[in-house]
């Protein structure tokens, strides 16, 4: 049994989001022994007839989901982010290739997961799922946005991967806030630099922007909760208006949000980008706050990156 999580943990929002879409009889929730941790357990309590336990067998769960989707169901399969990766080829070949509407949720993603140590800290999930054609890749920052984005999964025609986080973070949204899969949410506006962030780093980005404003560096902060498809329209606009970017993510700097931004910016603009993320190494056990400091996933890391990006304008 995992530690209790209430308040701003995105996994809690996912659990509530499942209940919001339960009215659709096509929705089926699949578990691999981690329902209490991913928070699909709330759906199980309310709708046991539409919850299927598949044991500690993630590869079977992914193809089981594909079979259900081919039969008209909308399966939502969750486990830890790292364990979804065990079934990567199943997701690629069995779900995405035929374009089946299976929605995967990987909880406990990132270094922020903390004391469980490096085996549990997925720092590459966003990158690998982003490489699969037809996949939508989502990483909400708090419980309120996670709930809303989960509810919107019903609007997708193809497969998706959503990473949620284990621990509580400050809320960035209020109940009823408008946000939409595929559209970055501008949480703060400034004309000197844009910080494009996702997940638990969105709150850190807001704090960094406040610090930078005291140096007269005015930042836009975006919650880029949808990594794929990337909101190119917003990025292009911010490239013109701000002229410099910092990406901030609890994920490897290789292939995730920073990688996605870099691909687009380098081929379409000369706008500088600095990346804050995990520098191609594994984590270890420790408190979330200790690990984030150790890896430079903190306010100071974003501020330094912002100054570097501005100096490259």
């Amino acid at each position: 049994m995992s530690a209790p999580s209430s308040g701003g943990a995105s996994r809690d929002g996912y659990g509530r989001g499942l209940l919001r879409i339960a009215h659709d009889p096509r929705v089926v929730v699949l578990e691999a022994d981690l329902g209490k941790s991913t928070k699909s357990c709330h759906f199980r309590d309310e709708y046991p007839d539409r919850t299927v336990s598949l044991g500690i067998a993630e590869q079977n769960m992914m193809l089981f989901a594909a079979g259900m989707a081919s039969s008209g169901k909308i399966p939502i399969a969750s486990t830890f982010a790292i364990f979804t990766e065990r079934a990567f080829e199943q997701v690629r070949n069995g779900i995405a290739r035929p374009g089946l509407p299976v929605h995967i949720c990987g909880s406990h993603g990132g270094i922020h997961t903390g004391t469980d140590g490096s085996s549990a800290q997925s720092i590459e999930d966003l990158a690998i799922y982003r490489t699969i054609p037809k996949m939508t890749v989502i990483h909400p920052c708090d419980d309120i946005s996670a709930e809303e984005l989960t509810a919107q999964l019903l609007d997708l025609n193809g497969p998706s991967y959503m990473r949620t986080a284990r621990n509580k973070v400050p809320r960035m949204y209020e109940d009823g806030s408008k946000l939409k899969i595929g559209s970055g949410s501008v949480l703060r506006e400034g004309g000197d630099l844009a910080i494009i962030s996702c997940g638990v780093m969105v709150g850190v980005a807001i704090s960094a922007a406040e610090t930078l404003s005291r140096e007269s560096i005015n930042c836009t902060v975006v919650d880029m909760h949808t990594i794929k498809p990337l909101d190119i329209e917003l990025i292009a606009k911010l490239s013109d208006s701000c002229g410099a970017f910092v990406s901030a993510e609890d994920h490897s700097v290789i292939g995730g949000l920073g990688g996605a931004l870099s691909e687009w910016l380098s081929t379409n603009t000369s706008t500088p980008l600095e990346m804050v993320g995990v520098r191609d190494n594994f984590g270890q056990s420790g408190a979330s706050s200790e690990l984030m400091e150790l890896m430079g996933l903190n306010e100071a890391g974003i501020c330094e990156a912002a100054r570097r990006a501005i100096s490259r304008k």
Partner: protein
Amino acid sequence: MGDGTEVDVSELEQMARRCRVDIVKMTHAAKSGHPGGSLSAIDCMVAIYGTCLRFDTSNPDWEDRDRFIMSKGHASPAMYSILHQMGVLDEDDIMGFRTLGSVCQGHVDMNWTKGVDFSAGSLGMGLSFGLGCALAAKMDSSDRRIWVMLGDGETQEGQIWEAAMAANYHNATNLRVIVDRNRIQNDDFMDVQMEIGDIGEKFRSFGWTVKEVDGHDMSSLVDVVDWANSEDGGPVAIVANTVKGNGVSFMENNPSFHGMAPDDEELRIALEELS
């Protein structure tokens, strides 16, 4: 048959012979493909399609059709030959096998071919998919049945046994497996590569009901398919003892024809033998 319908075994044997002709012709034309495992599987598939699979050739997407999950997706020529003989695919379709834009992709693909229920190609995945189809049918209170064809080499994949465990736990009474036990895999005979042992006993140990059959004796196949179709006590597996390359002398028990097409002379001999 359990429903009282008379089955013309000799007609099924003739259909299987025509399918074998298709298999050697399309792999010859493509200069690639997997004739050996197609020829070993074809009698089983004809017995299933020809006697019990509820499938509307004029409406292959019919929602309440029975499903046939070709998990050993490299044996796609067998699948395409069945669909050809049933009138879902035409001669041009199957002779375009493996060419750019063809509806007959190298491995069976539900997005490319009408009548194909599963996108295969990576072994070990079809039983899980079939189980998902089976439990979805139960949730819908539909009586559609799900057939999954596995290769014996494929059962080396651990995912097969994850699915076997789950199928019994979830009482998938509408799920039937048929294993093409031809004893040859890509590189060599299974007892050289990694012998899996008594596959039927393994399924039994996971709670399945199992029968073995001669996978090239149409009369026995019809009987065992009929038995499997009427079983409702849990998931059912049939282990069909087959010969890789069956029906074409030089392909029989020849590991080389797992993934090699016949050349012009070999095609001529094969067609002569199948005439």
